[in-house]
């Protein structure tokens, strides 16, 4: 094995590094880095439809309500419906920007549009039309939708009035929001939420809640009112259908009941549940004030880590090593940030975590080399620092390459195969960081140490 003269070309690589750092800084200063919703405030929805929905249709509907929102179609296997991520930034002009989310009214209007793409509201309106007044009164009154804090008699009466008004307006209503506005102009949101809760969509219900509703209603009159098996069966059928039951027949088949029970259960489900043709998979909202705070915490974490590491290396080695490794670290983080930003990455919590991992990882590499340099210095009487450094880099080279490769493989696999947004957010900066970190531990850290050694205090002196 012949030694490669890394240190000999330190001038060229030094220039390259400086260039890269300047380019990254310039990019970051001029274009900045996009911030995710959690660091900027706003909401992010992930919504899934069982059918193919054209992104243009969705955009048109959402733009009318929330102009300037970002819509991205997410990757999904063909034939498994479509999935979108919708980001709505909260502007400072929004009322009550201290509060996270859009406020119920705005969100319900958005949901009306999602519902419009399937036939959700129409389904619920059909359900409400088909069931008897008495059933509806019983259901809404049991839920106490109107929050009547009085006797059963009074509560029943008020809900009977409500049902009469609902029934009268059903024929003319196109959406749930529309219906609620006609029936209960003061506080329509409560009515929408109440009706949704009273007649949930099976595709949007969790298994636990479904089992609970069945236990409460006991549609089959079971003695122990236990329905875990039915809930399990229906949810398994839902999972088998790409998480969307297409109709009541599939639902019933999944429940796995005998003919007599199946008929009763089928009627019960038809009268109490809609199917649901969209679902919100993830709904995250951050208020502007907490966003600023989270970003602050992220910076603090990075600075704390740098400081802690500087002190540790300073104590374990010498301050020269600490300075050189922190310099290499800045180099790695700035270039990685620059490349990440240039690739269109957004700063989010997972990304900050990934960058802290880069900090740890890049140091890991650097320290292995430094450790060897220190060892070689101790074993030589009259060391020539440049040669020693070159030896050390060469001695640790295969380790550096092997570790970088294994880590790169694994992180690369996450990035290319997981198909999960959070995991991808993590792995992209890591991939960049591994490359830059490996480069810097060979070409940046040791020259920096050499520079310090010549300029301030020779590392051969204890």
């Amino acid at each position, binding site marked *: 094995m012949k030694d490669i003269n890394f240190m000999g070309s330190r001038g060229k690589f030094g220039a390259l590094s400086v260039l890269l750092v300047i380019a990254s800084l310039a990019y970051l200063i001029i274009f900045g880095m996009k911030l995710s919703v959690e660091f900027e405030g706003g909401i992010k929805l*992930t919504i899934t439809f069982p059918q193919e929905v054209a992104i243009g249709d969705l955009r048109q509907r959402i733009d009318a309500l929330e102009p300037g929102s970002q819509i991205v179609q997410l990757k999904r296997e063909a034939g498994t419906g479509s999935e979108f991520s919708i980001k709505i930034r909260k502007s400072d002009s929004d009322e009550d920007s*201290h*509060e*996270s*989310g859009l406020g119920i009214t705005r*969100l319900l209007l958005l949901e009306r549009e999602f519902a419009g793409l399937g036939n959700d509201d129409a389904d619920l309106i059909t359900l409400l039309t088909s069931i008897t007044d008495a059933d509806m009164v019983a259901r809404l009154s049991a839920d106490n939708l109107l929050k009547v804090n009085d*006797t059963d008699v009074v509560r029943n009466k008020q809900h009977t009035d409500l049902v009469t008004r609902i029934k009268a307006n059903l024929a003319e209503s196109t959406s749930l929001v529309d219906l609620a506005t006609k029936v209960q102009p003061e506080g329509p949101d409560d009515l929408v*939420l109440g009706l*949704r809760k009273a007649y949930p969509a099976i595709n*949007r219900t*969790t*298994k*636990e*809640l479904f089992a609970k509703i069945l236990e409460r209603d006991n549609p089959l009159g079971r003695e122990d009112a236990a329905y875990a098996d039915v809930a399990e069966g229906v949810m398994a059928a839902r*999972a088998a259908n790409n998480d969307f039951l297409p109709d009541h027949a599939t639902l019933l088949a999944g429940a796995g009941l005998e003919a007599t029970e199946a008929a009763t259960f089928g009627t019960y489900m038809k009268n109490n549940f809609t199917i649901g043709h969209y*679902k*919100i*998979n*993830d*709904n*995250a*909202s*951050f*208020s502007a004030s907490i966003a600023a705070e989270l970003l602050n*915490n992220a910076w603090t*974490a990075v600075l*704390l*880590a740098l400081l*802690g*590491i500087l002190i*540790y290396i300073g104590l*374990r080695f010498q301050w020269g090593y600490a300075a050189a490794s922190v310099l290499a670290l800045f180099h790695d983080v700035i270039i990685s940030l620059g490349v990440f930003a240039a690739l269109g990455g957004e700063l989010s*919590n*997972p990304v*900050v*975590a990934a960058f*802290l*991992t880069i*900090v*740890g990882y890049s*140091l*890991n590499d650097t*320290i*292995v080399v430094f*450790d*060897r340099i220190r060892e070689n210095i101790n074993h030589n009487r009259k060391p020539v620092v440049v040669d020693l450094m070159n030896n050390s880099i060469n*001695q640790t080279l295969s*380790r550096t390459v*092997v*570790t970088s490769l*294994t880590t790169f493989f*694994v*992180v690369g696999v*996450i990035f290319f*195969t*997981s198909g*999960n947004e*959070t995991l991808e957010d*993590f792995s992209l900066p*890591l991939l960049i960081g591994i490359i830059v970190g490996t480069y810097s531990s060979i070409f940046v850290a040791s020259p920096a140490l050499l520079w310090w050694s010549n300029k301030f205090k020779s590392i051969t002196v204890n």
Partner: protein
Amino acid sequence: MRFRWAIIGLTLFYSAYTLLAPGEDNKWSLDNYKENIHLGLDLRGGVFMKLEVDLADALDQYLEEQAGTIKGSLEGDKFTVASAVHDFDSQSVTLHSVASTEYPDTLKRIKEIYGNWTVTRTGDNITLRLHETAKKAIEEGAITQTVKKIQQRVDELGVTEPVINRTLGSNRIIVELAGADDDQRVRQIVQEPGQLEWRLAVRGASQAATPEELQRNAGNVPPGAKMVHFVDEARGSDYYMYLQEVMLTASHVSDVSVTRDERGLPAVSIVLNRAGGQIMHTNSGSNVGNQLAIVLDGIGISAPVINSQLSERFIIQGSFSQQEVEDLVIKIKSGSLPAKVVVLQSRKIGPTLGRDAIKSGTMSAVWGLALVVVFIVVYYRVAGLFALASLALNLPLIMAMLSGIGAVLTLPGVAGFILTIGMAVDANVLIFERIREELRSGTMPKNAVDVGYKSAFVTIMDANITTFLAAFCLYLMGEGPIKGFAIMLMIGIVCSIFTAVFCSRTFFLQYIKRRSSAKTLSIWPLWASKSPGSD
């Protein structure tokens, strides 16, 4: 040697036990790990909220109440006060044109009564400014009360294992509801002001121990009457009463505090607002001798008898202990939230999201592992197998430690876990490269292994401690799922040092022992054709 194998055996046993230990069903099965590895909300699905109690609002509400109360009680103490104005910015209440015939030194008297305030005088006006300590106590009380209130309300949601915690030392509250699916409703529930009602008892229908008994005894109950269950935990009493419609609500009550009655016994002082006072005045006159019940969220908490016509200010007296009075005050006050609650952050995670993430995460881990396996075995041959064996030990050990310390597995944690697979071989690589070097310089295999492990150990520690430090900072400053990543990284570092340094060395020693006379070691494929030391 035996000692080493015993430790490895123990570690394996610990991992297996922690991961497979049966839960309540007491059945041992391989599937138990699903229950023993606790999934974070982002993998389980549910609703997460971070709330903030608006402390400024809490103080504001308090000052507003106090302005009225102070004026009122001074007037009761033979003072005349033209008006009382509260000012939030200076956290003070200013009393205008204060005079008293009873006390020549009004300032001194007021200072005596209001120890919690700094009292100053300008002309006829007296200003009371809230002490810093009193302010803290009010804020603290508002937070505790809000947490308690939200706990009660969330219980009504019927979610299993709701988590409602105050972030230590702050005015933040974390709500985690696994399996909940309606974030809008949770939002409504946590922000809604409470349900406190004051209702007059139905005359002639006295209380009874059971609903049936009450129905039998009551005879004709007027329409609109509501049967209410009274629970007095302190006295262990539990009874039912018929009550009339709601007379007053939380919005009519401006202050509730602990006081003493004319006999000097502990009592509850109630101050109503003007509207409340009028309602009270009209209704209490015709109801002297009847009971006035206080109902909190549907449960009766007290039903004192009206002794005379009442208006804005009155007290509830009885043979109460100081503790009972304080509890009653807290209960009546908790009828409404003491301050506004702001939702700072909320997240609803659908049930399929986590399932899909676990699926894709597992796939990535398997593929990543496969790549590492192939690479290491090709590159290090037999020694590579030792590295893989220690990696294989690493995985259950990490999971067991995660479960053992009660941490949750989050989605970023899954990423951390996969990352650990890549980084865990690093320590082995460091050692093997060292051994190779020793072999190359002609050292006998057994010595080469010893030297390799010894000299690599220092490097391994230095390199990993720095990564650990970075992870620890992330743990300190990060939150929720990110904390999960930091914990995973820290556990991963500890475990991989153990398995790489201790376990793989054991395998190596065992291997060498069998071939103590061997001159070569299969760790050196790239230069295997040459004899050691020729380089």
